[in-house]
Protein backbone atom coordinates (compact mmCIF):
# COMPACT_ATOMS: atom_id res chain seq x y z
CA UNK A 1 0.00 0.00 0.00
CA UNK A 2 2.57 2.52 1.15
CA UNK A 3 4.99 1.54 -1.59
CA UNK A 4 2.41 1.72 -4.33
CA UNK A 5 3.29 4.52 -6.72
CA UNK A 6 -0.28 4.69 -8.02
CA UNK A 7 -1.63 5.55 -4.59
CA UNK A 8 0.85 8.37 -4.24
CA UNK A 9 -0.09 9.64 -7.69
CA UNK A 10 -3.77 9.55 -6.71
CA UNK A 11 -3.03 11.55 -3.56
CA UNK A 12 -0.88 14.01 -5.43
CA UNK A 13 -3.62 14.52 -8.01
CA UNK A 14 -6.33 15.23 -5.40
CA UNK A 15 -4.03 17.47 -3.36
CA UNK A 16 -3.15 19.43 -6.47
CA UNK A 17 -6.81 19.90 -7.28
CA UNK A 18 -7.42 21.65 -3.94
CA UNK A 19 -4.17 23.46 -3.24
CA UNK A 20 -5.42 26.22 -0.96
CA UNK A 21 -7.73 24.02 1.09
CA UNK A 22 -5.00 21.44 1.58
CA UNK A 23 -2.43 24.09 2.47
CA UNK A 24 -4.68 25.66 5.10
CA UNK A 25 -5.47 22.31 6.68
CA UNK A 26 -1.85 21.30 6.74
CA UNK A 27 -1.03 24.64 8.32
CA UNK A 28 -3.37 23.94 11.23
CA UNK A 29 -1.62 20.62 11.92
CA UNK A 30 1.84 22.11 11.49
CA UNK A 31 0.92 24.95 13.81
CA UNK A 32 -0.35 22.56 16.47
CA UNK A 33 2.89 20.60 16.50
CA UNK A 34 4.96 23.77 16.31
CA UNK A 35 3.23 25.16 19.41
CA UNK A 36 3.52 21.86 21.27
CA UNK A 37 7.28 21.75 20.65
CA UNK A 38 7.71 25.39 21.65
CA UNK A 39 5.67 24.96 24.82
CA UNK A 40 7.56 21.81 25.81
CA UNK A 41 10.89 23.54 25.24
CA UNK A 42 9.78 26.59 27.23
CA UNK A 43 8.66 24.35 30.10
CA UNK A 44 12.01 22.63 30.04
CA UNK A 45 13.76 26.01 29.99
CA UNK A 46 11.90 27.13 33.10
CA UNK A 47 12.64 23.84 34.83
CA UNK A 48 16.33 24.09 34.00
CA UNK A 49 16.28 27.65 35.31
CA UNK A 50 15.00 26.48 38.67
CA UNK A 51 17.39 23.55 38.79
CA UNK A 52 20.14 26.07 38.13
CA UNK A 53 19.00 28.10 41.11
CA UNK A 54 19.44 25.00 43.25
CA UNK A 55 22.79 24.00 41.79
CA UNK A 56 24.92 25.80 44.39
CA UNK A 57 23.65 24.05 47.48
CA UNK A 58 22.91 20.39 47.99
CA UNK A 59 19.24 19.86 47.17
CA UNK A 60 18.98 17.01 49.68
CA UNK A 61 19.91 19.08 52.71
CA UNK A 62 18.44 20.63 55.84
CA UNK A 63 19.77 23.92 57.20
CA UNK A 64 19.08 24.93 60.78
CA UNK A 65 19.64 28.35 62.33
CA UNK A 66 18.90 28.89 66.06
CA UNK A 67 16.62 31.81 67.00
CA UNK A 68 14.58 32.95 69.97
CA UNK A 69 11.75 30.92 71.52
CA UNK A 70 8.28 32.23 70.85
CA UNK A 71 6.28 30.27 73.42
CA UNK A 72 6.65 29.66 77.16
CA UNK A 73 7.51 26.04 77.89
CA UNK A 74 7.71 24.02 81.13
CA UNK A 75 7.64 27.12 83.25
CA UNK A 76 10.24 28.91 81.17
CA UNK A 77 9.36 32.21 79.59
CA UNK A 78 9.22 32.95 75.89
CA UNK A 79 11.99 35.03 74.31
CA UNK A 80 14.96 32.91 75.32
CA UNK A 81 17.82 32.52 72.84
CA UNK A 82 18.44 29.02 71.61
CA UNK A 83 22.18 28.47 71.64
CA UNK A 84 23.36 25.58 69.53
CA UNK A 85 26.75 24.07 70.34
CA UNK A 86 29.18 21.52 69.01
CA UNK A 87 27.35 19.00 71.22
CA UNK A 88 24.20 19.50 69.18
CA UNK A 89 26.27 18.85 66.09
CA UNK A 90 27.61 15.65 67.62
CA UNK A 91 24.19 14.48 68.83
CA UNK A 92 22.59 14.99 65.42
CA UNK A 93 25.55 13.33 63.73
CA UNK A 94 25.58 10.33 66.07
CA UNK A 95 21.93 9.71 66.96
CA UNK A 96 19.77 10.68 63.99
CA UNK A 97 19.61 7.94 61.35
CA UNK A 98 19.65 9.13 57.76
CA UNK A 99 22.04 12.03 58.31
CA UNK A 100 24.80 11.75 55.71
CA UNK A 101 27.30 14.62 55.57
CA UNK A 102 27.03 17.09 58.39
CA UNK A 103 28.72 20.34 59.31
CA UNK A 104 28.29 23.17 61.71
CA UNK A 105 29.20 26.73 60.89
CA UNK A 106 30.67 29.29 63.21
CA UNK A 107 30.32 32.69 61.57
CA UNK A 108 33.09 35.19 61.57
CA UNK A 109 31.32 38.44 60.92
CA UNK A 110 32.38 40.81 58.22
CA UNK A 111 35.29 40.64 55.80
CA UNK A 112 38.77 40.11 57.11
CA UNK A 113 41.99 41.62 55.98
CA UNK A 114 43.95 38.82 54.37
CA UNK A 115 47.57 39.28 53.40
CA UNK A 116 50.18 37.39 51.44
CA UNK A 117 53.37 39.36 51.59
CA UNK A 118 52.60 42.65 49.92
CA UNK A 119 49.31 41.50 48.44
CA UNK A 120 46.26 42.01 50.59
CA UNK A 121 42.53 42.36 50.36
CA UNK A 122 39.37 41.72 52.37
CA UNK A 123 37.63 38.35 52.19
CA UNK A 124 34.80 36.61 54.05
CA UNK A 125 35.74 33.68 56.31
CA UNK A 126 33.69 30.61 57.26
CA UNK A 127 34.75 28.18 59.95
CA UNK A 128 33.25 24.78 59.28
CA UNK A 129 33.52 21.00 59.50
CA UNK A 130 34.89 18.82 56.66
CA UNK A 131 31.33 17.83 55.69
CA UNK A 132 30.67 21.41 54.59
CA UNK A 133 32.21 20.58 51.25
CA UNK A 134 29.14 18.52 50.36
CA UNK A 135 26.65 21.16 51.43
CA UNK A 136 27.99 24.00 49.32
CA UNK A 137 29.07 21.67 46.52
CA UNK A 138 32.62 22.95 46.91
CA UNK A 139 34.83 21.68 44.07
CA UNK A 140 38.48 21.20 44.95
CA UNK A 141 40.89 22.43 42.30
CA UNK A 142 44.14 21.73 44.08
CA UNK A 143 45.21 20.34 47.46
CA UNK A 144 42.51 19.18 49.85
CA UNK A 145 39.54 20.40 51.85
CA UNK A 146 39.55 20.51 55.65
CA UNK A 147 39.81 17.13 57.41
CA UNK A 148 39.10 15.71 60.86
CA UNK A 149 42.65 16.21 62.09
CA UNK A 150 42.44 19.89 61.24
CA UNK A 151 39.37 20.01 63.49
CA UNK A 152 40.81 17.91 66.31
CA UNK A 153 44.12 19.77 66.44
CA UNK A 154 42.68 23.20 65.75
CA UNK A 155 45.16 23.61 62.97
CA UNK A 156 45.69 26.98 61.42
CA UNK A 157 44.98 25.88 57.87
CA UNK A 158 42.88 27.54 55.18
CA UNK A 159 41.15 26.42 52.02
CA UNK A 160 40.76 29.36 49.69
CA UNK A 161 38.54 30.15 46.71
CA UNK A 162 40.03 30.69 43.29
CA UNK A 163 39.20 34.41 43.41
CA UNK A 164 41.33 34.67 46.53
CA UNK A 165 44.17 32.98 44.66
CA UNK A 166 43.78 35.45 41.80
CA UNK A 167 44.13 38.39 44.17
CA UNK A 168 46.81 37.20 46.56
CA UNK A 169 49.01 34.81 44.60
CA UNK A 170 49.04 35.88 40.95
CA UNK A 171 51.06 33.16 39.22
CA UNK A 172 52.61 31.32 42.19
CA UNK A 173 51.29 28.07 43.62
CA UNK A 174 49.40 28.89 46.84
CA UNK A 175 49.53 25.35 48.31
CA UNK A 176 51.83 25.30 51.33
CA UNK A 177 52.11 29.12 51.41
CA UNK A 178 51.20 31.08 54.51
CA UNK A 179 48.58 33.81 54.56
CA UNK A 180 47.87 36.30 57.29
CA UNK A 181 44.25 36.57 58.37
CA UNK A 182 43.69 39.37 60.84
CA UNK A 183 47.18 38.91 62.28
CA UNK A 184 47.18 35.11 62.47
CA UNK A 185 49.19 32.95 60.04
CA UNK A 186 47.33 30.16 58.23
CA UNK A 187 48.79 27.58 55.90
CA UNK A 188 46.95 27.19 52.57
CA UNK A 189 46.12 23.50 52.03
CA UNK A 190 43.62 23.69 49.18
CA UNK A 191 42.05 25.76 46.45
CA UNK A 192 38.42 25.36 45.43
CA UNK A 193 35.85 26.74 43.09
CA UNK A 194 32.09 26.95 43.55
CA UNK A 195 29.32 27.20 40.97
CA UNK A 196 27.50 29.52 43.33
CA UNK A 197 29.14 32.56 41.82
CA UNK A 198 31.81 35.15 42.63
CA UNK A 199 30.71 35.54 46.26
CA UNK A 200 31.33 31.86 47.00
CA UNK A 201 34.60 31.87 45.10
CA UNK A 202 35.95 34.69 47.34
CA UNK A 203 35.41 32.54 50.45
CA UNK A 204 38.08 31.25 52.83
CA UNK A 205 37.35 28.14 54.92
CA UNK A 206 39.10 27.41 58.22
CA UNK A 207 38.44 24.60 60.74
CA UNK A 208 35.48 25.42 62.98
CA UNK A 209 37.48 24.69 66.12
CA UNK A 210 40.18 27.12 65.02
CA UNK A 211 37.54 29.74 64.30
CA UNK A 212 35.86 29.28 67.67
CA UNK A 213 39.17 29.48 69.52
CA UNK A 214 40.53 32.45 67.64
CA UNK A 215 37.36 34.53 67.76
CA UNK A 216 35.99 33.72 71.19
CA UNK A 217 33.23 31.36 70.20
CA UNK A 218 33.73 28.74 72.91
CA UNK A 219 31.75 25.78 71.50
CA UNK A 220 28.89 27.78 70.02
CA UNK A 221 27.76 27.32 66.46
CA UNK A 222 25.60 29.56 64.29
CA UNK A 223 24.28 27.03 61.91
CA UNK A 224 23.87 23.30 61.52
CA UNK A 225 23.58 21.75 58.06
CA UNK A 226 23.45 18.20 56.82
CA UNK A 227 22.62 16.16 53.74
CA UNK A 228 20.37 13.09 53.67
CA UNK A 229 21.67 10.97 50.80
CA UNK A 230 18.90 10.04 48.40
CA UNK A 231 16.12 10.37 50.94
CA UNK A 232 12.74 11.13 49.42
CA UNK A 233 10.40 13.80 50.68
CA UNK A 234 8.78 11.53 53.24
CA UNK A 235 12.10 10.32 54.58
CA UNK A 236 13.44 13.87 54.79
CA UNK A 237 10.35 14.97 56.72
CA UNK A 238 10.93 12.14 59.18
CA UNK A 239 14.58 13.10 59.68
CA UNK A 240 13.53 16.73 60.01
CA UNK A 241 11.05 15.84 62.75
CA UNK A 242 13.65 13.75 64.63
CA UNK A 243 16.10 16.66 64.58
CA UNK A 244 13.39 19.10 65.69
CA UNK A 245 12.49 16.86 68.61
CA UNK A 246 16.10 16.33 69.58
CA UNK A 247 16.92 20.04 69.61
CA UNK A 248 13.69 20.96 71.42
CA UNK A 249 14.44 18.37 74.05
CA UNK A 250 18.03 19.51 74.52
CA UNK A 251 17.24 23.21 74.66
CA UNK A 252 13.94 22.91 76.48
CA UNK A 253 11.42 24.55 74.19
CA UNK A 254 8.24 23.29 72.63
CA UNK A 255 8.87 21.13 69.54
CA UNK A 256 5.92 22.99 67.98
CA UNK A 257 7.43 26.41 68.63
CA UNK A 258 7.90 27.82 65.12
CA UNK A 259 10.20 30.59 66.22
CA UNK A 260 12.82 28.70 68.26
CA UNK A 261 14.79 27.57 65.24
CA UNK A 262 14.59 28.27 61.56
CA UNK A 263 14.75 25.02 59.65
CA UNK A 264 14.98 24.93 55.90
CA UNK A 265 14.28 21.59 54.22
CA UNK A 266 15.62 21.82 50.68
CA UNK A 267 14.13 18.46 49.72
CA UNK A 268 10.67 19.80 50.39
CA UNK A 269 11.26 22.91 48.35
CA UNK A 270 12.93 21.04 45.57
CA UNK A 271 10.13 18.49 45.46
CA UNK A 272 7.59 21.26 45.38
CA UNK A 273 9.31 22.79 42.39
CA UNK A 274 9.59 19.46 40.64
CA UNK A 275 5.89 18.85 41.22
CA UNK A 276 5.15 22.31 39.87
CA UNK A 277 7.04 21.46 36.71
CA UNK A 278 5.33 18.13 36.37
CA UNK A 279 2.08 20.06 36.54
CA UNK A 280 3.29 22.54 33.95
CA UNK A 281 4.41 19.71 31.66
CA UNK A 282 1.01 18.06 31.97
CA UNK A 283 -0.69 21.35 31.21
CA UNK A 284 1.52 21.84 28.16
CA UNK A 285 0.68 18.40 26.81
CA UNK A 286 -3.03 19.02 27.32
CA UNK A 287 -2.89 22.37 25.52
CA UNK A 288 -0.66 20.96 22.78
CA UNK A 289 -2.80 17.92 22.18
CA UNK A 290 -5.88 20.13 22.20
CA UNK A 291 -4.32 22.21 19.43
CA UNK A 292 -3.49 19.05 17.49
CA UNK A 293 -7.05 17.78 17.91
CA UNK A 294 -8.26 20.98 16.27
CA UNK A 295 -5.93 20.11 13.39
CA UNK A 296 -7.23 16.54 13.24
CA UNK A 297 -10.80 17.78 13.04
CA UNK A 298 -9.69 20.06 10.20
CA UNK A 299 -8.13 17.20 8.27
CA UNK A 300 -11.13 14.97 8.93
CA UNK A 301 -13.38 17.73 7.67
CA UNK A 302 -11.56 18.25 4.40
CA UNK A 303 -11.41 14.51 3.89
CA UNK A 304 -15.19 14.32 4.36
CA UNK A 305 -15.67 17.06 1.78
CA UNK A 306 -13.26 15.25 -0.47
CA UNK A 307 -15.26 12.01 -0.14
CA UNK A 308 -18.44 13.89 -0.95
CA UNK A 309 -16.93 15.52 -4.00
CA UNK A 310 -15.51 12.24 -5.21
CA UNK A 311 -18.68 10.19 -4.72
CA UNK A 312 -18.99 9.48 -8.45
CA UNK A 313 -15.34 8.57 -8.72
CA UNK A 314 -15.55 6.19 -5.77
CA UNK A 315 -18.72 4.65 -7.19
CA UNK A 316 -17.00 4.10 -10.51
CA UNK A 317 -13.96 2.58 -8.85
CA UNK A 318 -16.15 0.19 -6.93
CA UNK A 319 -18.13 -0.71 -10.05
CA UNK A 320 -15.01 -1.63 -11.97
CA UNK A 321 -13.78 -3.78 -9.12
CA UNK A 322 -12.10 -1.81 -6.34
CA UNK A 323 -12.50 -3.79 -3.07
CA UNK A 324 -13.64 -1.76 -0.02
CA UNK A 325 -10.26 -2.19 1.64
CA UNK A 326 -8.64 -0.42 -1.27
CA UNK A 327 -10.97 2.58 -0.96
CA UNK A 328 -10.36 2.78 2.80
CA UNK A 329 -6.63 2.54 2.25
CA UNK A 330 -6.70 5.33 -0.31
CA UNK A 331 -8.33 7.82 2.07
CA UNK A 332 -6.39 6.71 5.14
CA UNK A 333 -3.14 7.09 3.28
CA UNK A 334 -4.17 10.52 2.07
CA UNK A 335 -5.02 11.79 5.54
CA UNK A 336 -1.89 10.23 7.03
CA UNK A 337 0.23 11.79 4.34
CA UNK A 338 -1.26 15.22 5.00
CA UNK A 339 -0.91 15.03 8.79
CA UNK A 340 2.53 13.43 8.87
CA UNK A 341 3.93 15.81 6.28
CA UNK A 342 2.39 18.87 7.92
CA UNK A 343 3.37 17.65 11.36
CA UNK A 344 6.91 17.04 10.26
CA UNK A 345 7.11 20.60 8.95
CA UNK A 346 5.81 21.85 12.30
CA UNK A 347 8.26 19.62 14.17
CA UNK A 348 11.24 20.86 12.20
CA UNK A 349 10.11 24.49 12.46
CA UNK A 350 9.58 24.10 16.21
CA UNK A 351 12.94 22.49 16.86
CA UNK A 352 14.60 25.07 14.61
CA UNK A 353 13.02 27.89 16.59
CA UNK A 354 14.09 26.33 19.88
CA UNK A 355 17.65 25.99 18.57
CA UNK A 356 17.58 29.62 17.55
CA UNK A 357 16.40 30.71 21.00
CA UNK A 358 19.14 28.58 22.55
CA UNK A 359 21.69 30.22 20.31
CA UNK A 360 20.47 33.70 21.25
CA UNK A 361 20.51 32.81 24.96
CA UNK A 362 24.05 31.48 24.50
CA UNK A 363 25.28 34.74 23.01
CA UNK A 364 23.69 36.85 25.74
CA UNK A 365 26.32 37.99 28.25
CA UNK A 366 23.91 37.83 31.14
CA UNK A 367 21.35 35.09 30.49
CA UNK A 368 18.05 35.21 32.40
CA UNK A 369 18.29 33.32 35.67
CA UNK A 370 14.99 31.50 35.51
CA UNK A 371 15.15 30.41 31.89
CA UNK A 372 18.03 28.23 30.80
CA UNK A 373 18.79 25.75 28.04
CA UNK A 374 15.31 25.22 26.57
CA UNK A 375 15.27 22.07 24.47
CA UNK A 376 13.04 19.26 23.25
CA UNK A 377 14.14 15.83 24.35
CA UNK A 378 14.01 12.80 22.10
CA UNK A 379 11.09 11.26 23.97
CA UNK A 380 8.91 14.31 23.48
CA UNK A 381 9.76 14.47 19.77
CA UNK A 382 9.06 10.75 19.35
CA UNK A 383 5.81 11.19 21.27
CA UNK A 384 4.78 14.02 18.98
CA UNK A 385 5.59 11.91 15.92
CA UNK A 386 3.51 9.04 17.25
CA UNK A 387 0.62 11.40 17.95
CA UNK A 388 0.86 12.56 14.33
CA UNK A 389 0.55 9.12 12.80
CA UNK A 390 -2.34 8.31 15.13
CA UNK A 391 -3.90 11.65 14.27
CA UNK A 392 -3.67 10.82 10.61
CA UNK A 393 -5.44 7.50 11.13
CA UNK A 394 -8.13 9.04 13.33
CA UNK A 395 -8.71 11.90 10.91
CA UNK A 396 -8.98 9.56 7.94
CA UNK A 397 -11.01 6.80 9.55
CA UNK A 398 -14.51 8.27 9.42
CA UNK A 399 -14.17 9.71 5.90
CA UNK A 400 -12.57 6.47 4.65
CA UNK A 401 -15.36 4.35 6.06
CA UNK A 402 -17.92 6.66 4.58
CA UNK A 403 -16.19 6.35 1.22
CA UNK A 404 -16.16 2.57 1.45
CA UNK A 405 -19.89 2.59 2.23
CA UNK A 406 -20.78 4.47 -0.96
CA UNK A 407 -23.27 2.53 -3.05
CA UNK A 408 -22.12 2.55 -6.68
CA UNK A 409 -25.71 2.32 -7.90
CA UNK A 410 -26.55 5.59 -6.17
CA UNK A 411 -23.25 7.21 -7.00
CA UNK A 412 -23.42 6.42 -10.71
CA UNK A 413 -27.11 7.15 -11.20
CA UNK A 414 -27.57 9.68 -13.98
CA UNK A 415 -29.42 12.77 -12.93
Amino acid sequence: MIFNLDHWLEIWQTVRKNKLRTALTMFSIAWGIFMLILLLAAGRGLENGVRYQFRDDAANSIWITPRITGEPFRGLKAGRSVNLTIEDYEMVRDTIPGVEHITARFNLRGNFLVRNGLQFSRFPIRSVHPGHKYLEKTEMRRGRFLNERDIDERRKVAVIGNRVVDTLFKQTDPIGQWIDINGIQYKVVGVFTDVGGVGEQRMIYIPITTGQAAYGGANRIHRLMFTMGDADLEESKRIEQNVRNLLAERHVYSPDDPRAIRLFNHVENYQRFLQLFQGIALFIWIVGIGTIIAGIVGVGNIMLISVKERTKEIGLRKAIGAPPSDIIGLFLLESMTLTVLAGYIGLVAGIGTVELVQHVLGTMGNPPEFFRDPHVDVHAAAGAALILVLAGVVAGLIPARRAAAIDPIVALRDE
Partner: protein
Amino acid sequence: MIHINQIRKSYQMGSLSLEVLKGIDLNIEEGELVSIMGPSGSGKSTLLNILGILDQYQEGEYHLAGTLMKSLSERKAAYYRNHYLGFVFQSFHLLEFKNALENVALPLYYQKVSRRKRNRKARELLERVGLGDRAEHMPNELSGGQKQRVAIARALISDPKVILADEPTGALDSQTSDQVMDLFKEVNASGKTVVIVTHEAEVAEKTSRTIHLRDGVVQNDTHNAGVAS
Protein backbone atom coordinates in the same frame (compact mmCIF):
# COMPACT_ATOMS: atom_id res chain seq x y z
CA MET B 1 -23.22 -17.15 -20.15
CA ILE B 2 -25.99 -15.45 -18.18
CA HIS B 3 -28.60 -17.70 -16.61
CA ILE B 4 -31.35 -16.10 -14.59
CA ASN B 5 -33.92 -18.25 -12.94
CA GLN B 6 -37.06 -16.84 -11.28
CA ILE B 7 -35.41 -13.77 -9.85
CA ARG B 8 -37.48 -11.66 -7.53
CA LYS B 9 -36.52 -8.36 -6.06
CA SER B 10 -38.51 -5.99 -3.91
CA TYR B 11 -37.74 -2.75 -2.14
CA GLN B 12 -39.03 -1.98 1.30
CA MET B 13 -40.60 1.48 1.37
CA GLY B 14 -41.60 1.97 4.98
CA SER B 15 -44.33 -0.56 5.63
CA LEU B 16 -44.93 -1.06 1.93
CA SER B 17 -43.06 -3.65 -0.07
CA LEU B 18 -42.60 -2.69 -3.70
CA GLU B 19 -41.85 -5.65 -5.92
CA VAL B 20 -39.77 -4.56 -8.90
CA LEU B 21 -38.79 -7.89 -10.41
CA LYS B 22 -41.52 -10.48 -10.25
CA GLY B 23 -39.86 -13.69 -11.28
CA ILE B 24 -37.62 -13.13 -14.29
CA ASP B 25 -36.24 -15.95 -16.39
CA LEU B 26 -33.51 -15.09 -18.82
CA ASN B 27 -30.77 -16.97 -20.64
CA ILE B 28 -28.11 -15.20 -22.66
CA GLU B 29 -25.55 -17.38 -24.37
CA GLU B 30 -21.93 -16.59 -25.03
CA GLY B 31 -21.41 -14.28 -27.98
CA GLU B 32 -24.91 -12.80 -28.05
CA LEU B 33 -25.65 -9.10 -28.61
CA VAL B 34 -28.78 -8.42 -26.59
CA SER B 35 -30.76 -5.28 -25.86
CA ILE B 36 -33.12 -4.87 -22.93
CA MET B 37 -36.00 -2.44 -23.38
CA GLY B 38 -38.89 -1.33 -21.33
CA PRO B 39 -40.64 1.76 -20.03
CA SER B 40 -39.38 3.39 -16.86
CA GLY B 41 -40.52 1.40 -13.87
CA SER B 42 -40.37 -1.83 -15.80
CA GLY B 43 -37.41 -2.97 -13.71
CA LYS B 44 -34.77 -2.84 -16.40
CA SER B 45 -32.35 -0.76 -14.33
CA THR B 46 -32.77 -3.09 -11.38
CA LEU B 47 -32.17 -6.06 -13.62
CA LEU B 48 -29.03 -4.43 -14.98
CA ASN B 49 -27.77 -3.75 -11.44
CA ILE B 50 -28.31 -7.38 -10.55
CA LEU B 51 -26.59 -8.52 -13.73
CA GLY B 52 -23.74 -6.15 -12.82
CA ILE B 53 -23.48 -7.62 -9.28
CA LEU B 54 -24.11 -4.14 -7.93
CA ASP B 55 -27.37 -5.12 -6.28
CA GLN B 56 -28.75 -8.10 -4.40
CA TYR B 57 -31.92 -10.04 -5.09
CA GLN B 58 -34.12 -11.97 -2.71
CA GLU B 59 -35.26 -15.01 -4.63
CA GLY B 60 -34.12 -17.05 -7.57
CA GLU B 61 -30.66 -17.67 -8.96
CA TYR B 62 -28.24 -15.81 -11.16
CA HIS B 63 -25.37 -17.72 -12.71
CA LEU B 64 -22.69 -15.75 -14.49
CA ALA B 65 -20.28 -17.87 -16.52
CA GLY B 66 -21.32 -20.87 -14.47
CA THR B 67 -20.83 -19.22 -11.07
CA LEU B 68 -23.74 -18.49 -8.76
CA MET B 69 -23.89 -14.80 -7.90
CA LYS B 70 -25.86 -14.64 -4.70
CA SER B 71 -25.24 -13.06 -1.28
CA LEU B 72 -21.67 -12.24 -2.13
CA SER B 73 -19.44 -10.28 0.20
CA GLU B 74 -18.46 -6.83 -1.03
CA ARG B 75 -14.98 -8.12 -1.66
CA LYS B 76 -16.15 -11.10 -3.76
CA ALA B 77 -18.60 -8.93 -5.67
CA ALA B 78 -15.81 -6.49 -6.49
CA TYR B 79 -13.65 -9.37 -7.64
CA TYR B 80 -16.30 -10.72 -10.03
CA ARG B 81 -17.16 -7.28 -11.36
CA ASN B 82 -13.52 -6.73 -12.08
CA HIS B 83 -12.85 -10.07 -13.74
CA TYR B 84 -16.15 -11.00 -15.41
CA LEU B 85 -17.78 -7.69 -16.33
CA GLY B 86 -17.14 -4.51 -18.27
CA PHE B 87 -19.39 -1.50 -17.66
CA VAL B 88 -20.36 1.27 -20.06
CA PHE B 89 -22.51 4.13 -18.72
CA GLN B 90 -24.68 6.79 -20.26
CA SER B 91 -22.57 9.61 -18.86
CA PHE B 92 -19.27 7.80 -19.46
CA HIS B 93 -17.94 8.19 -15.88
CA LEU B 94 -14.37 8.83 -16.82
CA LEU B 95 -12.13 10.19 -14.02
CA GLU B 96 -11.57 13.84 -14.90
CA PHE B 97 -8.06 14.04 -13.50
CA LYS B 98 -6.78 11.06 -15.46
CA ASN B 99 -5.99 11.04 -19.16
CA ALA B 100 -7.61 8.62 -21.60
CA LEU B 101 -4.85 6.05 -21.23
CA GLU B 102 -4.99 6.07 -17.40
CA ASN B 103 -8.77 5.79 -17.47
CA VAL B 104 -8.64 2.76 -19.71
CA ALA B 105 -5.92 1.14 -17.60
CA LEU B 106 -7.74 1.58 -14.26
CA PRO B 107 -9.50 -1.85 -14.02
CA LEU B 108 -6.15 -3.62 -14.40
CA TYR B 109 -4.82 -1.61 -11.46
CA TYR B 110 -7.27 -3.51 -9.28
CA GLN B 111 -5.89 -6.75 -10.69
CA LYS B 112 -2.41 -5.69 -9.52
CA VAL B 113 -1.09 -5.63 -13.07
CA SER B 114 2.15 -3.68 -13.37
CA ARG B 115 1.96 -0.13 -14.58
CA ARG B 116 3.90 -0.76 -17.76
CA LYS B 117 1.88 -3.77 -18.72
CA ARG B 118 -1.50 -2.15 -18.20
CA ASN B 119 -0.48 1.02 -20.02
CA ARG B 120 0.66 -1.06 -22.98
CA LYS B 121 -2.63 -2.91 -23.07
CA ALA B 122 -4.59 0.32 -22.65
CA ARG B 123 -2.78 1.82 -25.63
CA GLU B 124 -3.63 -1.23 -27.74
CA LEU B 125 -7.30 -0.87 -26.85
CA LEU B 126 -7.34 2.85 -27.58
CA GLU B 127 -5.90 2.01 -31.02
CA ARG B 128 -8.65 -0.54 -31.46
CA VAL B 129 -11.43 2.00 -30.71
CA GLY B 130 -9.76 4.49 -33.02
CA LEU B 131 -8.32 6.83 -30.37
CA GLY B 132 -4.63 5.90 -30.54
CA ASP B 133 -3.71 9.55 -31.04
CA ARG B 134 -5.79 10.75 -28.08
CA ALA B 135 -4.19 8.61 -25.36
CA GLU B 136 -2.72 11.54 -23.42
CA HIS B 137 -5.80 13.74 -23.70
CA MET B 138 -7.82 14.54 -20.62
CA PRO B 139 -11.55 13.70 -20.70
CA ASN B 140 -12.55 17.36 -21.01
CA GLU B 141 -10.54 17.51 -24.25
CA LEU B 142 -12.60 14.72 -25.82
CA SER B 143 -16.01 14.78 -27.52
CA GLY B 144 -18.93 12.73 -26.21
CA GLY B 145 -18.41 9.99 -28.78
CA GLN B 146 -14.72 9.84 -28.03
CA LYS B 147 -15.41 9.64 -24.29
CA GLN B 148 -17.75 6.72 -24.82
CA ARG B 149 -15.17 4.95 -26.92
CA VAL B 150 -12.63 5.44 -24.12
CA ALA B 151 -15.22 3.97 -21.74
CA ILE B 152 -15.72 0.97 -24.03
CA ALA B 153 -11.96 0.46 -24.18
CA ARG B 154 -11.93 0.56 -20.36
CA ALA B 155 -14.74 -2.03 -20.26
CA LEU B 156 -12.73 -4.31 -22.53
CA ILE B 157 -9.34 -4.07 -20.86
CA SER B 158 -9.89 -6.73 -18.21
CA ASP B 159 -10.99 -9.13 -20.96
CA PRO B 160 -14.41 -9.63 -19.33
CA LYS B 161 -16.97 -12.27 -20.19
CA VAL B 162 -19.84 -9.78 -20.53
CA ILE B 163 -20.09 -6.11 -21.45
CA LEU B 164 -22.98 -4.35 -19.70
CA ALA B 165 -24.02 -1.03 -21.20
CA ASP B 166 -26.57 1.26 -19.60
CA GLU B 167 -28.08 3.63 -22.18
CA PRO B 168 -24.68 3.98 -23.86
CA THR B 169 -26.01 6.29 -26.56
CA GLY B 170 -28.29 8.30 -24.30
CA ALA B 171 -26.02 11.32 -24.27
CA LEU B 172 -24.93 11.15 -27.89
CA ASP B 173 -26.32 12.51 -31.17
CA SER B 174 -27.62 10.04 -33.72
CA GLN B 175 -24.52 9.98 -35.90
CA THR B 176 -22.21 9.34 -32.95
CA SER B 177 -24.70 6.81 -31.62
CA ASP B 178 -24.35 4.87 -34.83
CA GLN B 179 -20.57 4.87 -34.52
CA VAL B 180 -20.75 3.67 -30.92
CA MET B 181 -23.23 0.94 -31.89
CA ASP B 182 -20.93 -0.12 -34.71
CA LEU B 183 -18.17 -0.42 -32.13
CA PHE B 184 -20.38 -2.59 -29.92
CA LYS B 185 -21.12 -4.82 -32.90
CA GLU B 186 -17.44 -5.09 -33.63
CA VAL B 187 -16.76 -6.02 -30.00
CA ASN B 188 -19.53 -8.58 -30.22
CA ALA B 189 -18.12 -9.95 -33.45
CA SER B 190 -14.85 -10.59 -31.65
CA GLY B 191 -16.75 -13.00 -29.43
CA LYS B 192 -17.80 -10.92 -26.43
CA THR B 193 -21.27 -11.16 -24.97
CA VAL B 194 -22.85 -7.66 -24.92
CA VAL B 195 -25.98 -6.58 -23.04
CA ILE B 196 -27.33 -3.11 -23.74
CA VAL B 197 -30.12 -1.46 -21.78
CA THR B 198 -31.82 1.17 -23.90
CA HIS B 199 -35.10 2.90 -24.54
CA GLU B 200 -34.22 3.76 -28.12
CA ALA B 201 -35.73 1.50 -30.77
CA GLU B 202 -32.97 2.36 -33.26
CA VAL B 203 -30.40 1.02 -30.83
CA ALA B 204 -32.39 -2.11 -30.10
CA GLU B 205 -32.78 -2.74 -33.83
CA LYS B 206 -29.02 -3.03 -34.16
CA THR B 207 -28.87 -5.90 -31.68
CA SER B 208 -29.61 -9.48 -32.60
CA ARG B 209 -32.07 -10.01 -29.79
CA THR B 210 -34.36 -7.70 -27.86
CA ILE B 211 -35.90 -8.44 -24.47
CA HIS B 212 -38.89 -6.34 -23.47
CA LEU B 213 -39.63 -5.92 -19.79
CA ARG B 214 -42.91 -4.71 -18.39
CA ASP B 215 -43.96 -4.52 -14.75
CA GLY B 216 -41.12 -6.70 -13.59
CA VAL B 217 -41.57 -9.60 -15.97
CA VAL B 218 -40.28 -10.46 -19.44
CA GLN B 219 -43.03 -9.49 -21.80
CA ASN B 220 -41.35 -10.22 -25.07
CA ASP B 221 -38.13 -11.85 -26.25
CA THR B 222 -37.53 -11.38 -29.96
CA HIS B 223 -34.68 -12.25 -32.27
CA ASN B 224 -34.11 -9.58 -34.85
CA ALA B 225 -33.96 -10.92 -38.33
CA GLY B 226 -31.04 -9.66 -40.34
CA VAL B 227 -28.72 -8.92 -37.45
CA ALA B 228 -26.00 -11.45 -37.13
CA SER B 229 -24.66 -12.34 -33.75
